[in-house]
C-alpha cells in the first residue's frame, strides 16, 4: 500500500478521531476499501499469498467483521491492529480456515480459498500460532514440536515415532532460528512465554508454513521477551514467509510491520504501507487513540462537553 492514493487517508482518519465512534467509523470504510483496491495492482508484481476482499462475518445478529480488505505478501509482515472486540480474532479465524467469510472473497495465491477446517489451511501452508493454545505444558519440547505430524519409522503395526530423528530435528531447527533452549527433553511448561512462542514459530516454519498467522504473540510478555519474539518474526520474514502479526500494541507492530491493517468495531480503518503512516499516527489511530483523547479531555474538566455517562 505504498501508492499515492493512500496519503490523505491517515489524515482523513485522523481528522475524524475526535468525533464519537459509530456511524462515522462506518462511513469511512467504503472509502478506505476503495483506496486499498486502487493501489493493489501497483503494490507489487507477485500475487499476494493471502488476500481478503471486503470480507465480512456475522454471528447471529452480531456483525463481527465487515468489508475488511487486506493482503499478505511473501517476505513481508502485515500487522493487524485493533482493540478488544475489534474483530481481530474473527479475521484470524477466517484466514486460518476456522470459519469461511459470509461475504466478500478470501483468496489464497490469487484463487478463492474453500477451507472447511484449519487442517485445509495448514495443508496450503497457512499456519496459525495462537497465543494461548500453542503448546502443551506437560509434554517435552520435542513431543510438542512434532505433535500431530510425528515422523514415523517402520511400517504396519510396527510403525513408530522416530524419536531420535525428532529430537535431532528439533535441536537443529531451534538452533538455525537462533533459539537457545538447553534441553529438548524439558517440559514446555518450564519454558518462558517468549521461548514458547519462539518454539511454536520455529515449528510452523519447519512444517513448511508459507504464511504465519501470529495471534498476539507478544501481548503476555515483558519488554525483553517481546523483543526476543519480534526477532524471530523478523527471522521468519527474512526466510521469505508472509507473516500476519496480530497485536494491540503499535510499539510492537511498527518496527517490524511492512503494512498495517487497523480494525475497529469489526470494520477496517484502512490498510497502510509503512511509508504512509508514522508511529504517532498509528498509535493514535489504534483503537483507544481517539477514546484516550476524549478520556483525557473528560478527565481534565469538571463538566465533559459530550455525554458525560458515555462508557468507553
Amino acid at each position: 500500500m505504498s501508492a499515492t492514493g493512500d496519503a490523505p487517508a491517515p489524515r482523513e482518519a485522523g481528522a475524524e478521531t475526535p468525533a464519537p465512534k459509530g456511524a462515522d467509523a462506518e462511513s469511512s470504510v467504503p472509502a478506505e476499501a476503495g483506496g486499498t483496491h486502487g493501489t493493489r495492482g501497483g503494490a507489487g508484481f507477485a500475487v499476494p499469498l493471502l488476500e481478503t476482499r471486503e470480507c465480512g462475518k456475522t454471528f447471529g445478529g452480531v456483525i463481527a467483521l465487515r468489508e475488511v480488505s487486506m493482503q499478505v505478501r511473501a517476505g513481508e509482515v502485515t500487522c493487524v491492529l485493533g482493540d478488544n472486540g475489534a474483530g481481530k480474532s474473527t479475521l484470524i479465524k477466517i484466514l486460518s480456515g476456522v470459519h469461511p467469510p459470509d461475504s466478500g472473497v478470501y483468496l489464497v495465491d490469487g484463487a478463492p480459498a474453500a477451507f472447511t477446517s484449519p487442517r485445509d489451511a495448514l495443508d496450503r501452508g497457512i499456519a496459525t500460532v495462537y497465543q494461548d493454545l500453542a503448546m502443551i505444558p506437560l509434554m517435552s519440547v520435542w513431543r510438542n514440536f512434532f505433535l500431530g505430524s510425528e515422523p514415523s519409522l517402520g511400517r504396519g503395526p510396527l510403525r513408530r515415532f522416530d524419536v531420535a530423528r525428532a529430537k535431532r530435528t528439533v535441536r537443529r531447527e531451534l538452533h538455525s532460528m537462533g533459539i537457545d533452549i538447553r534441553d529438548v527433553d524439558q517440559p514446555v511448561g518450564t519454558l518462558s512465554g517468549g521461548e514458547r512462542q519462539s518454539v511454536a514459530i520455529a515449528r510452523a516454519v519447519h512444517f513448511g508454513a508459507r504464511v504465519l498467522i501470529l495471534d498476539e504473540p507478544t501481548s503476555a510478555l515483558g519488554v525483553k521477551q517481546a523483543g526476543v519474539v519480534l526477532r524471530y518474526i523478523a527471522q521468519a520474514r527474512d526466510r521469505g514467509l508472509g507473516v500476519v502479526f496480530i497485536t494491540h500494541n503499535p510499539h510492537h507492530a511498527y518496527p517490524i510491520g511492512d503494512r498495517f491493517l487497523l480494525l475497529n468495531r469489526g470494520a477496517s480503518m484502512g490498510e497502510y504501507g509503512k511509508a504512509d503512516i508514522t508511529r504517532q499516527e498509528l498509535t493514535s489511530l489504534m483503537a483507544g487513540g481517539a477514546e484516550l483523547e476524549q478520556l483525557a479531555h473528560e478527565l481534565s474538566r469538571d463538566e465533559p462537553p459530550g455525554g458525560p455517562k458515555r462508557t468507553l
Partner: protein
Amino acid sequence: MTVADERLAGTGLARRLLIRPELGAVVGAIVVFAFFAGQSETFRSIDGVANWLDPASTLGIMAVAIALLMIGGEFDLSAGVLTGSTGLIMVILSTRYGLSVWTAMLVALVVALLVGFLNGMIVVRTKLPSFIVTLGTFLMLQGVNLGVTKALTGTVQVSGLRRAEGYDQARALLAGTFSLGGTDFRVAILWWLGITALATWVLMRTRPGNWIFAVGGDERAARAVGVPADRTKIALFMTTAVAAWLVGSILALRFTSVQANAGLGQEFVYIIAAVIGGCLLTGGYGSAVGASIGALIFGMADKGIVFLGWDADWFKFFLGAMLLLATLANRLVRRYAEEVRH
C-alpha cells in the same frame, strides 16, 4: 548439534529419575515389600511371590488400560462392572445357548467394544465429564447384570463353564499356570507383563502415544495442531473395554462361574493403582509401568495382610492411606518437574 547443551551437565541422573512419573510407585513398592517380607517368611518365599503376583496381574491389566485413559484425560467408572458383564455373557452363552467358549468370548468382546465405543462417543459428542457418563453406564450395566442373571437363572450367579466346549484350551491360554523354578505361576502374569510392555511402547514410541498425552494435557491445543482428539479418546475407552473383557474372561475361566455383581467396586481400585503409578487426575501425565507397579503394591498388600494373619478389613484402610500418600508425592514430583529452570 547432537551433543546436549553444555549447561545440562549439572542436572544429572538424580533429576532425570525424579521427574519420572513412576518414582513414587517404585519407592512405595519397595517399602511395602520390605514391610511384609520382613515379617512373613511365606511372603518372601517363591510360592508367596507367585501368590501375590496373582491378584496384581488382573488388577494390573486394568490399571494399565485405565492409566492410558487417564493420561488421555478421562475416567471410566464402568470398567469394573464391565469385567462382570463380559464374564456373564461368556458363561451364559456357552452354558445355556450351546456356544463354544471361543464364540461366547467373541460375542462378549463385541459387546465390550460397543460399550467402550458408546462411552467414548457420548463423552466426545456431549462434552460431559466422563466421570458422569461412565457413572451412568456403570449403573446401567450393574442393573443389566443383575436383572438378566436373575431372569435367566433365578439366582445371582451363573456357573458350569467347565462343561462348555473349548473350555480347556481357553483356560490354558488365559487362566492356566506356567512353571518357573518348580513353582506354578498364573499365566495372567504374562498377559499383564505383555500388556504393560505394549502400553509403554505405544505411549512412548508411537504417534497415538503422543496424541494420548496431548489430548489429556490440553485438548484444544492438540486439536489445533491436527491431533484426532475424538478418535484418540474413543479408542482409549474401547481399549479399556477390551482390557475389561480380557480380565472378565480370565476370571470367568478360572472360577468357571460369575457372580452377577462381579467387578463391582473395582473401578476405584484401578484408578487408585493408576494414580499411585503417577497418573495425574487432571490428565496428560502418567505411565503404564507406574500403574503396573501400583497394581503390584495392591497385590502385595492384599495377600500380605492375609499372610500376617490380620483382618482383611485393614486392606481398605491401606488403600486409602496409599492413595493419599501417592497423590501428595506425585504433586511434589510434578512441581519439581515443572519448576522453571533458568
